[in-house]
């Protein structure tokens, strides 16, 4: 009658969703910072150059 395992199942679901809710934003922030770092280095690479293009 104690339905012990139902309680455990419910609390596991609770913990799992809260964990996801904790991790997801942290991953997003880390991903944004990595993207920004990439963009910062990319700006430096292609300087607009003026010399004429040629296709011999």
């Amino acid at each position, binding site marked *: 009658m104690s339905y012990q395992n139902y309680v455990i199942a419910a609390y596991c*679901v609770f913990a799992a*969703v809260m964990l996801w809710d904790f991790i997801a*934003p942290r991953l*997003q*922030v880390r991903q*944004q910072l990595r993207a920004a*770092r990439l963009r910062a280095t990319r700006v430096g690479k292609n300087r607009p150059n003026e010399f004429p293009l040629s296709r011999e």
Partner: protein
Amino acid sequence: MHPVVRWFHQLGSPPYFERFAARWAPIAYIAGLLVMAYGLYGALFVVPADYQQGDSFRILYIHVPSAWMSMAAFALMALYAAIALIWRIKLCEILAMACAPVGAAFTLITLATGSIWGKPMWGTWWDWDPRLTTELILLFLYLGVIGLYNAIDDRRNASRAAGLLAIVGVALLPVIHYSVTWWNSLHQGQTIRLFGQSHMDPSMLPPLWAMVIGTHLWFVGSLLARARADNLRRESGKDWVAKLAEPRA
């Protein structure tokens, strides 16, 4: 300028909000965790087993706070969206869209724990109980807002369109709830009231309030963390983000 107004105004500038959110999100998370730990301890060990439901009624301590949180998050999202639409405040757009995933998470918890709690009662995993059905439709509304926000490319348009949907959703939510309750009474008569306000003796209340406060604190932490991520995403072109991203040599 009144200090609070100045603070709110300052919060509007993305770099300031980044620092504010980076500092306060972990604090809110930890506070929420502590309060919930106290609540869960009370719920699992202190409160005596129910004479009728045995231990399964302990699920109430995560089901009810999550249900209230899912409704509160939707109302807050609609409020932020209304402010963002009327006064075009970028910060409120970010906060509105940050509410959606957290609200959806709590709705998911409510549905899962509700069906787990119902299994011993009804013998099936799902019963078209009016409140569970409303919660299910609330999940669809959340998914609709999140789907619309990610479907439109321009961030500002996306948040304003999804915000408008949130406002329409919050206006229709009570109508949906009423219609589902009316529908239930028409078809099955009164099933036993699973979540009826069965007499709660006073010793059972403190853990419940602890859990409610805990979930709200957790909500603030998650909201700030997600808003911070979206803020960085929108300001990714600016150089203060590039400076922030510099590896601390």
